């Protein structure tokens, strides 16, 4: 690990002051950043520990929920409002990582975790445009069973690994940011960027900018929501494919729906085309399948990951059928 200085920020202004220096990085639970530093993939000169900043989870005036960026994943998953009004978020959180890691990991850090693409991690043996911009990508023509079928470019097909962010994408969450120029809010679905020609850039964060909170707007039918994750083992593994869904059905017709995908895309993937295809349709497995296909038309498989197209379609149909009782 390269040498660095460590500072525990007392408040957001203090964090920004220290974080403005080039080479400084904000530190949450450290579950990903410390590992990457040990691999010398991340080499910050200074760590600004922001776990002492707001970890509060409070209801907003309009009936939504404001989650401080320093809230631990466990704290969010066990929060009564999350469990009862946004179950998709609680389910996504407990589907991710292990209990020890969920006790450490923060909401802000979860959004900024890096891909687990094995070529990204193989600093000594593989080319990676995300790790070393412009050097090439050994995954595109390599072993890419775990890689993205949506949102990839010729430069990068690494998936975004978060489960939590998939639920947040479905819930229309916004990310609250604070920088030298003041505060701003960005929709979660616009927070992460597609790789394009610059996979080393992963978010719209400006240099030194800090995530202070994530806000969930009120969404009454989110009380009826679910997260399903398919992985290579029963627990403690990243998703091959996952689906976050909330659906509002009246008299057998889909009045509204929220759908997002994980494990199959280069960023938390809001399935807007599927949602559009489904609104106003009968709540049947046939409609769900047609909606899934509308989204997955854009899928571009690599050598080893074409199975994710069928798998994702089946998960979408299964989750929506479960939520609407269409599987009965």
């Amino acid at each position, binding site marked *: 690990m390269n040498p660095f200085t460590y500072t525990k920020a007392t408040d957001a202004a203090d964090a920004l002051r220290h974080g403005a220096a080039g080479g400084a990085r904000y530190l949450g639970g450290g579950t990903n950043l410390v590992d990457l530093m040990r691999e010398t993939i991340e080499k910050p000169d200074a760590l600004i520990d922001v776990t002492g900043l707001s970890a509060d989870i409070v209801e907003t005036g309009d009936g939504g929920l404001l989650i401080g960026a320093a809230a631990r994943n466990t704290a969010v998953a066990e929060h009564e409002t999350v469990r009862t009004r946004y179950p998709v978020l609680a389910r996504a959180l407990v589907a991710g990582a292990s209990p020890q890691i969920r006790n450490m990991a923060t909401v802000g850090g979860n959004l900024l975790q890096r891909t687990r693409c094995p070529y990204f991690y193989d600093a000594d043996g593989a080319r990676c445009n995300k790790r070393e911009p412009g050097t090439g990508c050994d995954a595109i023509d390599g072993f890419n069973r775990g890689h993205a079928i949506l949102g990839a470019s010729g430069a990068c097909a690494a998936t975004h690994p978060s489960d939590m962010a998939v639920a947040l994408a479905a819930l229309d969450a916004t990310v609250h940011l604070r920088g030298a120029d003041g505060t701003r809010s960005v929709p979660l679905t616009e927070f992460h960027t597609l790789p394009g020609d610059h996979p080393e850039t992963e978010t719209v964060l400006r240099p030194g900018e800090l995530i202070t909170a994530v806000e969930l707007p009120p969404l009454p039918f989110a009380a009826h929501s679910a997260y399903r994750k398919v992985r290579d083992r029963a627990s*403690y593994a990243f998703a091959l494919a996952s689906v976050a869904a909330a659906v509002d059905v009246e008299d057998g017709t889909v009045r509204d729906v929220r759908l997002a995908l994980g494990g199959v895309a280069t960023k938390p993937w809001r399935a807007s085309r599927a949602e559009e295809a489904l609104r106003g349709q009968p709540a049947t497995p046939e409609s769900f399948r047609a909606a899934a296909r509308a989204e997955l038309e854009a899928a571009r498989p690599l050598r080893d990951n074409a199975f994710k197209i069928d798998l994702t379609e089946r998960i979408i149909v299964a989750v929506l059928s479960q939520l609407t009782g269409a599987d009965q």
Partner: protein
Amino acid sequence: MSVIVNGSPRELPDDPRVSLLDFLRERLGLPGTKKGCDQGACGACTVLLDGERVLSCLTLAVQADGRDVTTIEGLGTPGDQHPLQKAFIAHDGFQCGYCTPGQICSAVGLAAEAGRGVPSHVTGDLTSEDIALTREEIRERMSGNLCRCGAHNGIVDAITETYASAEATA
């Protein structure tokens, strides 16, 4: 900067690169906490930080400033074993023993989490505060602790005997 380890105050290292794991083992002479993968995949380094189970390999020692760390040495001694340590022996919850301190610290954290209603991936009703520690719940909640000897059945038995109510084991 200082930390309380098993009830005693200790000075933290000047170099922030030192992990909590290396600090415990190499600077404090507490080798009970084990280094398995050193990258957060195996759970052998699990300790309790302010009562919550965490991975000491991915925690910088300086992050524990002002906090309370409990290792296996703080849970029980050969002459005064923790109930879980007795149960692990009774149920053959180990073979080589390397993962055992992490398993036991993790299970202590598990009991606290389940006791306050933290849901898991296999919890059926998210709105219930009352978690029944079934074998399925224990297996899921211990999935961050690997045992390469394959003693998982004995481990689940030991945790069940120590923490599960009669209702959950029926």
